[in-house]
């Protein structure tokens, strides 16, 4: 090997419309090395890999600064095709597989082996016939390399997720001249045993001299397989360390770092929280939400508190509220204010006055084409028959009352708009979020669950939304659960923070607990917490 590193990225910077997401990041991987790329959500891991893989999203937004060397040669990777030519392969998080095709056809997708025919000689190469025998034997060889024992003629459609991932890997391995394989959070969708198998396979691949970049935020996996790692935080390069020189706690601390900014100004707190006055009690609670599976959560929410639920993406925190509201199948006991909730019945939680502001604002939360007024009142008209004129046998929408209410809300929440008639689709992210909150407040609620309240909102609006939540809690005595992947945000406003890892609560912490504790809880290590503390 002529160069020491198979890939070397130096001083990479990237801006998305003025927003700097990567600042002077460097990354270097040796041949046959498993290198972990670590960081919290939004640390810039995916952007860095998209640059390396030449994704159009990078080039459509003005390219990047810095240099990339492959085998010591400086290259300009401006398309995924170019990346593949350089010997870079990527195993995507969302599978690029075709369910109706066999394993062989998927492995050979777009690169089928062919034999010429008379027609192809006359009319072009695309009329060459497929050489199915060679395709099958190549696929078999690639699958054997990674120890995938299924028949190469099996249709991919019915296979479990783990197998699909292996077929994706087999496809990358089958490509000739593969030097570097990128795994984008490969274990996020796998079961435990499948994940173990995957890690073993990664070692096998690396032992053949192929370098691997392994994007993850599971510290235990990194300790198990990676030789070295690069840690990013907020788009900056923190450190490149060898696994043997470090510990899990140290990695956790580096990933989270210390952030001093306070997102919420101090407010007067006259609340008296009674630890035994539990408003919501979850026992062995499980939710079958794809990608956010909850695997047995026991949690008590105290009346009047703000409870934060944190954790990394894909660990199950989002699944908790979605299950309670009945949007996904769930099991276990949910006792709310002395009554149990039937999650099989969509709307039962809503009737019992649990109000949910979804993380999927544009998908589930809002009717984008409709006016602000409609968006604010429509759930209330459905569930509580508000804003309706009742003529006995027929009900009619009460325009005047709805408009007045919408105007009040616009004023109270400071929604920046031209009037209640403006369609919410044309509002900014922060104002859309406020409309969602306004709708939630229109309903009579005992418990407000807000999922990812600040996703896609700029920093100023973020502060307003969070302060609004605190104000609602302090003034109206509303119990609030905030689900967020931004730990900093949870630490600014919550009384207690439950960290969810691998579908379970791995710890309940106080906002002022140390970074290392949060880091360890997030990577699934059980830690003691705030249960015996203030709340």
């Amino acid at each position, binding site marked *: 090997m002529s160069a020491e590193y198979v890939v070397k990225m130096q001083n990479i910077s990237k801006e998305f419309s003025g927003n700097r997401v990567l600042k002077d990041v460097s990354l270097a991987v040796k041949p046959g090395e498993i290198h972990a790329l670590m960081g919290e959500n939004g640390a810039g891991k995916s952007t860095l890999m998209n640059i390396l893989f030449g994704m159009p999203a990078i080039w459509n937004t003005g390219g990047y600064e810095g240099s990339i060397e492959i085998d010591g040669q400086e290259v300009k990777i401006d398309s995924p095709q170019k990346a593949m030519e350089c010997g870079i392969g990527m195993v995507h998080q969302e599978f690029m597989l075709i369910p109706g095709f066999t394993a062989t056809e998927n492995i050979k*997708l777009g690169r089928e082996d062919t034999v010429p025919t008379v027609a192809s000689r006359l009319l072009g190469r695309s009329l060459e016939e497929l050489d199915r025998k060679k395709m099958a034997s190549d696929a078999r060889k690639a699958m054997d390399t990674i120890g995938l024992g*299924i028949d190469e003629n099996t249709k991919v459609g019915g296979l479990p997720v783990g197998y699909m991932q292996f077929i994706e890997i087999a496809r990358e391995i089958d490509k000739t001249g593969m030097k570097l394989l990128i795994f984008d959070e490969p274990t996020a969708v796998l079961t435990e045993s499948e994940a173990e198998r995957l890690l073993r396979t990664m070692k096998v691949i690396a032992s053949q001299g192929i370098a691997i970049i392994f994007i993850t935020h599971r510290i235990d996996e990194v300790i198990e397989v990676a030789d070295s790692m690069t840690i990013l935080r907020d788009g900056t390069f923190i450190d490149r360390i060898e696994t043997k020189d470090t510990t899990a706690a140290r990695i956790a601390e580096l990933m989270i770092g210390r952030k001093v900014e306070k997102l919420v100004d101090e407010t007067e707190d006259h609340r008296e929280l009674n630890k035994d006055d539990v408003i919501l009690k979850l026992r062995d609670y499980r939710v079958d939400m794809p990608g956010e599976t909850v695997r047995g959560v026991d949690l008590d929410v105290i009346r009047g508190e703000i409870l934060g639920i944190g954790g990394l993406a894909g660990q199950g925190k989002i699944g908790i509220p979605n299950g309670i509201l009945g949007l996904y199948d769930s099991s276990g006991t949910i006792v709310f204010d002395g009554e149990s909730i039937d999650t099989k019945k969509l709307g039962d939680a809503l009737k019992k006055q649990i109000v949910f502001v979804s993380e999927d604002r544009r998908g589930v939360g809002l009717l984008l084409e409709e006016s602000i007024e409609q968006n604010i009142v429509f759930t209330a008209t459905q569930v509580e028959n508000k804003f309706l004129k009742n003529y006995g046998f027929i009900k009619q929408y009460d325009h005047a009352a709805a408009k007045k209410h919408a105007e009040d809300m616009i004023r109270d929440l400071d929604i920046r708009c031209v009037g209640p008639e403006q369609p919410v689709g044309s509002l900014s992210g922060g104002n859309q979020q406020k409309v969602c909150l306004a709708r939630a407040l229109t309903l009579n609620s005992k418990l407000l669950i807000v999922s990812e309240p600040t996703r896609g909102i700029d920093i100023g609006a973020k502060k307003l939304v969070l302060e609004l939540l605190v104000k609602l809690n302090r003034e109206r005595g509303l119990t609030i659960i905030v689900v967020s992947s931004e730990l900093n945000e949870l630490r600014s406003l919550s009384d207690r923070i439950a960290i969810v890892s691998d579908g379970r609560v791995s710890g309940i912490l106080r906002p002022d607990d140390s970074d290392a504790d949060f880091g360890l809880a997030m990577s699934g290590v059980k830690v003691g917490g705030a249960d015996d503390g203030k709340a």
Partner: protein
Amino acid sequence: MKNNAETKISFGSYVKNALFNNKVIILFIVLCVACIMTANTSMSYIASEVFSRFGRNACLVLALIIPCLAGLGMNFGIVVGAIAAQIAIFFVVHWGFTGIGGFLLCTLLSTPMALLFGWLLGILYNKTKGSEMVTGLILGFFADGVYRLFTLYIIGGVIPYDDPNLLDRGFGLRNAFDLSDSIKYSLDDISFVTVFRILMIFIIVLQLVSLVMGVKKTAEARRESLIKLVSSAVGLVLSFVLMAVPGVASMIGGTRIILSDTLRIAMIVYVISVLVKKFVFRKDVKGEDMIKAVVIAALVIGLSYVPAIRNILRSISISACTYAVICLFCFFNNWILDTKLGQDMRTVGQNRIVAGSAGINVDRIRIIATCISTVLAAWGQMIYLQNLGTFNTVQQQSNVGLYAVAAILVGGASVQKANNKQAIIGVVLFHTLFVVAPLAATQIIGDSAISEYIRMFICYGVIAVSLAMHAWKKKDVAVKGAQAPISNVEAGEL
């Protein structure tokens, strides 16, 4: 280990599955049988009607398969192919070409037109991804309107077209177009023996070219090629020898061939081809397949001598060439799907995003698929018209797309998936229903004026029912997929 789950399936649930998967076909078989029983007509009448309709329509239906697999849904836009064919026919008739020469000239003229129309249609489909079917349907209506303007005014009105036989008022074509003096039966009248000889010559040329061009890389492939070459030459010589035998000459030398003879010849060819595959080409043919071939052939030939069936079979004669063309269409569909192009089409049909990321030019593949479909449709319409012999100048093409789609849906095809078998079964069932339903209705209601109404009713009804039944199927699959346990594959030897 993987096959455990499959082998465990009991016979009962196997039958249940088979019934459920073919429920569309079964429903229409039941309907056909019910109508036949009510219609009170002789079987030989129904059979001969169905056979002649089959010969006319099959090619149009086969034109739908490629775009369906490329993810374009049911291509209602084949109307534009039919229009290309009809325009070509106007010119050929005007110039006075007749017989097979005229037909070939029609092909030559209509193909570039169909390619152009198909290309435009493909571009339109690419702009309306996800709603190709409704686009095709509406575009069909639009093209229909433009075509009417063309036939009723532009021909003679703008383009000088001085032909008193075709023009009524100095411009605009006559309403009914008679082909009896030009290309009527031009394809149908080619005898079996001619078709056979053309086929043999085609194989000889193909193998010669492939040997000369060095396409075949392995010694084994060259040997195969040589065997095909020699046997085709023998076949060619044999056809001249057989024509000297009086009985055989009348059997295979006429313009039509009797159905019972066709069946027997087909069965003998079937058995021989299986044996040749096994012993000459040393392909991996299972013993049970060989036994199956012999049993089926014996059964069919045996049945063809049973008096009741024999009478029906003897009363029907089919055109060798038209049926050969239908086979050719089927063969073409299969062949193109086995090429790199075909694999790309199937990939695009299954998932455009994955196809794009695998380096396939999605838009281009979709346009090619549309072009192929349009050209096949143009040829299909020519076959249809040369058999019919007369057509309604202005509106012959109007329902081409609708009838073809209805037929393939009856055969069990869905919007996402179709194959030759479904097209063939579909044409047979749909046209059986087309023939017998009005008769049955007449028997019940006692009024024959209603028959045209019944036909339209069947056509739209068929499309709606089969689409609904397919939606039922899909929902069921989704539920099964969700319940598929992951645990039983855990045990696999990964």
